[in-house]
């Protein structure tokens, strides 16, 4: 029906080579083809941020990118954050500060916050809020998430 292309991407350190339809979105590739369902689809329109992943060091909403555009890139998803059973400081902070309830937006929040803390180890309150503005949460509310990120930033820089 439509054109396919073979792409090679590295996701959380593992190399995947797959044939994909040219119109396939990166999030569908990650969730359906590679079976990493930690990244979620909340809106399909680039508003909610539940599908946020890090592509070659840049935070990306993966429903706004085609899988073929990711050819040759290195992608980090929520599954790649923890080292085995060892949670990252940020993941632990989310749990400690009750920054999640249903957990649907959490992977996106974690990726946004991870990307933020990498480029800015000492974010101000406004910078944290700005760093999370592309992510929507519908049950926990934002305050606990904000607190978790500030606590993690403080702990990491200590």
């Amino acid at each position, binding site marked *: 029906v439509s054109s396919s292309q073979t792409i090679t991407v590295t996701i959380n350190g593992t190399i995947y080579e797959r044939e994909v339809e040219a119109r396939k979105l990166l999030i569908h590739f990650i969730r359906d083809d590679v079976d990493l369902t930690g990244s979620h689809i909340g809106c399909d329109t680039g508003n909610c941020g539940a599908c946020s992943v890090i592509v070659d060091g840049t935070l990306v909403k993966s429903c706004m990118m085609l899988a073929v555009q990711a050819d040759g890139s290195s992608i980090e998803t929520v*599954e790649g954050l923890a080292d085995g059973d060892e949670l990252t400081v940020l993941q632990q902070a989310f749990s400690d500060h*009750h920054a999640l309830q249903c957990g649907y937006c959490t992977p996106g929040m974690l990726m946004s916050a991870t990307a933020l803390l990498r480029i800015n180890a000492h974010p101000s309150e406004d910078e944290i809020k700005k760093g999370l503005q592309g992510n929507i949460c519908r049950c926990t509310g934002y305050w606990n998430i904000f607190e978790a990120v500030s606590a993690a930033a403080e702990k990491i820089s200590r």
Partner: protein
Amino acid sequence: VTSVTGSTTTISPERVEIQPPKEQYKGQNVPRKEDKRLVQGQGTFVDDIKRHHMGYIHFVRSPYAHAHITSIDVSKAESMKGVYGTLTGEEVASLTDPFFQLSSVPGGNIKDYALALGKVRFVGEAIVAVVAETRELARDASELVEIEYTHWRSRSRSSTTTPAATSCGPACTSGATSTRRSPRPTRS
């Protein structure tokens, strides 16, 4: 003691007793056992579940804010290879009860279903569901659903409404144009 001038109300602080929270309400945070898997992306949400021969759904949606549906033709979509089936509002209405209405009358008199029945009331309202082998196929097949509408141009200053027959072709997404333009609203 604070007196509100011109009023008999007197608010005396000593009458407002601020009690410390009772011991029984204080305690420790209880760690949630589901947190660990959720922060690692290991939760299982409905969208994460896959089954053999699972179908993917795509909805044909209304391009109009307010229109009557005069006909729906799903035959081309259904004949496409890999399409499991389609569902229209009429079929939904024959298979299910209308949604429960929370509102009192007249709102409570509304009878609506999971898919539009006879009429669409907002742009993007789901009219036909198409289920197919893959997400892409469902999307392609839904482009083959043909729906005809009679719609009313929305207006603010006119008391009359003139129906204009409109046909929405196979694509439905490109934005159908009216075959006949309604007269411009006149100021009264």
